[in-house]
């Protein structure tokens, strides 16, 4: 759904690293190098970032669309 706050296994805080990780992956950087530079050493924490999909973004689209429709109805 949304990036978990902490690693499920060890409890390290990883939520605050997600946005930088996702941004740098998009620019084409190697994921393993990014994780190293962010100081995420253990593989339990690395999989948290590697395997996360922000499904919340997909769901929020419905609400954005609904909002747009509401606005266009108000215009006419």
């Amino acid at each position: 759904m949304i990036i978990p706050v902490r690693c499920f296994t060890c409890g390290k805080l990883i939520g605050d690293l997600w946005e930088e990780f996702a941004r740098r992956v998009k620019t084409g950087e190697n994921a393993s190098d990014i994780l190293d530079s962010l100081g995420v050493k253990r593989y339990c924490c690395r999989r948290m970032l590697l395997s996360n999909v922000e499904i919340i973004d997909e769901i929020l689209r419905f609400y954005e669309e609904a909002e747009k429709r509401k606005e266009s109805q108000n215009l006419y």
Partner: protein
Amino acid sequence: MEIKILDKNATTMRLMIRGADVTLVNALRRIMLAEVPSMAIDEVVIIDNSSILQDEIIAHRLGLTPLKTDLDSYNLPGECECKSEFGCSLCRVTITLNAEANEGTRTVYSGELVSENPEIVPVSDKIPLIKLAKGQKLKLEAYARLGKGKNHAKWQPVSMCAYKYLPKIEIASEKCTGCAKCVEICPKKVFAIKADMVEVRDLLACNLCMDCVEACPQKPSPIKVSWEKNAFIMNIESTGVLPPERIIQEATKILDKQLKEFEEQVKVEVK
């Protein structure tokens, strides 16, 4: 006992402990995991939530957000003089959040949490708590309390606390042919080749897996891996709630307190 700090920064610390017993080092490790208190959100009152995440999920995410802890000015709820379930200003911190998306979809970060005590704030300002679409609202009041890791993992001040024996590697140099099989197989890159001979490059990295001994074509292998008695390397990684040196100091204090209590009980019973 002899303690040496191998390396240390704001969240991690590596110690070499010589002349201690496993029982002592393990007791300290377990106390650090389960009994050193730290601050975490324990109760959440949701006033308004029109976001797409349920109240419980938001409360869970808030609970897991590590908060900077002040052990000197706060009491554990059970040990506080107020004796109330709700808590007082010495055992509870009120944190509020009032977020609304007016312009469009936005992320609400931990930095938006407003604490009544500016010292008790999330470790990082950039933890995404929730995403709100335009028009959605989230308003809540949360109460943070001190707690122990044995009651819930959110109160664990360490995300890693482990020790290992200090490795001891001996290489019978006259028998080693310098085939470099051990250099290749070692997952921790402990060995290096120098002048056609294998030498130990990074002793502390060794995790005693013995792959090098098995990979060596000579039987018996000229490499002998063992560990030193009563010498340990301890690794502490704090979640940021307390500095690692403070965590270990608190652990020793707690162990001391427990032993004193035990001693007193024994004295009372023997009489």
